[in-house]
């Protein structure tokens, strides 16, 4: 992928402070005429050095640190960490705890997908859809709050199980919430597939074929929109998923619209799962004891975050502090595959392509760096898009 330095190379820097990005990011698109020749992002603004942080904290403190890798998918990180520690310690969390973990994981997927639907619409200038989807998201935030006491960072996980319980009153609140959300999501599915101004920005934009997605290792909804059969909940079920099977949702078009549709269909799947768990919640206690000192060993724990497969490599050295925790977040894979497929695409589609993969910077504060070329002249994100449009006219 070595890109020769052609004379009229435009490097477009955006950010780090930019109203479209709710988080700091700095994107550089090198362009040759109209076609993107090299796309790279320089993040690092959110790099807090957490992997090193875990090495100076005990396992229990590490759990709370790992929950704050990313605010939107905090439960998934904590669950992956807890599952890994239980595997190392040879402890099995009780079935009720596993089911509650899956329940909160699905509720978090609902809140994350609704959040993304609003932010992507806001990026495309469709503020009404942003307001409506975030208003409906408040129902799921309320449910999470009734169950775990906090709207974000619910810290439901404990090493060896869960520390919250679901009583009957909460169960019917959950069922009522799911019915309301299902009916609203049907409306959003109609809006996303029929509103022509929105389709103008999403239909066959940022297309990624099955082969491209497969070789580049695209995962999560971005990969599934190109037909990749990859969902950790289906391929290698963990926690409570073996007794609550998940249906794989895929599309084939691989463009931005397909990514919207895949995420919304996953919402329906999550509603079904939550209903099923609430009915068939197994009895039993909530947590098993995990020793302070974890025996020496290495393990890999893979979990399906709302944005794709989350990969934890954990190594313990027998003491009460971990030897090495490696976190590979889903957005890193999505970044890699999208930045590579962005090459060859039109410039005018860049903003929506980036918004389309639901980028979560704080998840992946470790992305490709900028290529500094003395000859480049600096254009803003928008002037690059403007350049694209002039070229088109």
């Amino acid at each position, binding site marked *: 992928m070595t890109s020769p330095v052609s004379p009229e190379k435009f490097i477009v820097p955006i950010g780090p402070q930019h109203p479209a990005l709710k988080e700091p990011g700095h994107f550089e698109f090198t362009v040759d005429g109209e076609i993107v020749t090299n796309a790279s992002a320089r993040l690092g603004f959110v790099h807090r050095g957490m992997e090193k942080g875990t090495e100076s904290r005990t396992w229990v403190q590490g759990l709370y640190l790992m929950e704050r890798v990313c605010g939107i998918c905090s439960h998934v990180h904590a669950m992956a960490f807890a599952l890994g520690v239980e595997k190392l310690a040879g402890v099995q969390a009780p079935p009720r705890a596993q089911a509650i973990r899956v329940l909160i994981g699905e509720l978090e997927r609902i809140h994350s997908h609704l959040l993304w639907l609003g932010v992507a*619409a806001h990026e495309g200038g*469709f503020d009404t859809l942003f307001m409506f989807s975030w208003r409906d998201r408040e129902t799921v935030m309320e449910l999470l709050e009734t169950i775990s006491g906090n709207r974000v960072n619910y810290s439901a996980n404990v090493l060896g199980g869960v520390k919250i319980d679901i009583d009957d009153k909460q169960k019917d609140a959950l069922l009522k919430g799911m019915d309301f959300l299902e009916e609203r999501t049907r409306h959003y599915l109609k809006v996303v597939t029929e509103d022509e101004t929105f389709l*103008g920005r999403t239909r066959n934009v940022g297309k990624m074929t099955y082969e491209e997605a497969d070789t580049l290792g695209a995962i999560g909804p971005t990969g599934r929109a190109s037909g990749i059969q990859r969902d950790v909940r289906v391929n290698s079920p963990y926690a409570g998923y073996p007794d609550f099977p998940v249906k794989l949702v895929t599309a084939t078009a691989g463009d931005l619209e397909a990514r919207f549709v895949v995420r919304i269909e996953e919402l329906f799947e999550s509603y079904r799962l939550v209903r099923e768990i609430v009915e068939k919640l197994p009895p039993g206690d909530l947590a098993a004891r995990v020793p302070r000192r974890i025996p020496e060993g290495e393990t890999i724990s893979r979990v399906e975050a709302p944005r794709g497969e989350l990969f934890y490599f954990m190594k313990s050295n027998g003491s009460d502090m971990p030897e090495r925790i490696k976190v590979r977040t889903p957005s890193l894979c999505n970044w890699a595959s999208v930045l590579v497929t962005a090459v060859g695409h039109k410039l*005018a589609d860049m*903003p929506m392509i980036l918004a389309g993969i639901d980028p979560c910077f704080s998840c992946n504060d470790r992305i490709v760096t900028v290529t500094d070329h003395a000859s480049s002249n600096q254009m*803003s994100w*928008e002037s690059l898009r403007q350049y694209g449009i002039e070229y088109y006219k």
Partner: protein
Amino acid sequence: MNITFPIYVALLFFPGGLFLMASGLFTEYIDRKLVARFQNRVGPRWFQPLADFVKLLAKEEIIPTGVNKALFVLLPIIALTAALTAALYVPLFGFKPVYSFSGDLVVTLYLLSMMTLCIGLAGANTEDRFSLVGATRALTQLFSYEAPFLLALLGPAIVLGTWNIGEINAGATSGTWFIVLQPIGFIVALIGLMGKLELPPFDAPEAETEIVAGALTEYSGRGFALFKLGRDVELVIGLTLIASFYLGGFTNPLDFLWKTLLLLFVTAALQSLFARLRIDQTVGLWWRSGMILVLLQLVVIILGTYLAPLVRPLLGG
């Protein structure tokens, strides 16, 4: 009601200066409140635009380096004065226009588009890339909606055979409303007004999520306040123009009020219904559909007015 006001009162207080600015602020409030209510939000309080305006006046004005200082300060003032002078020829609040001469329709329209020109210049004046792009977008959009908007307003002028806004307003009150006779003209005029004021879905030139604040990124304090006020005043004038042409003119203030508020309701609804169009889509929409529709309608009008006297004796006899 055709009481004529002494020139100074008209200019400074009643239909002209202060009252117009106050009604501009109030229209902005209604617009923001309607859009908020459409989005199921509570929306601002009634004095919000006034508070914004006074606060911006009290803020420190930063003049960025590498900017032509005189132009930077002058442009907002020119923009506001252009908008205010355009108000003289328009039958504001149901009263006869303060000053009118034949052909003042064209003068008013070009005074109104002076504002977008000033924003374009303001954007090009600074080195900040975001405002450079905002400026190019604003001017592209100016060229694309200006012609259809003018032609749409010409429809009633041709039928009534006069280019004087006051007379068109008077003529419109007599016959059936022009919205019935020329529906295409009304639609193109309304959407043209939204394009002129860069209201969403045509707010590409100041797309908050893409280019920060477009041409006005570098402005703060007084300059930004004057630009915002100029845009509000232009909203009032545009609504009165379309209401007087297409909704059968107005003779008394009450008539004026309910017609402009109706139009404001329609624009607020349109604002919250659509996603922001990319700049090439807006330009495409205007040149392909807007222009052709209006030209078609003009041909029909011209045929109608000139052929009618020949045909009527044959038919009516």
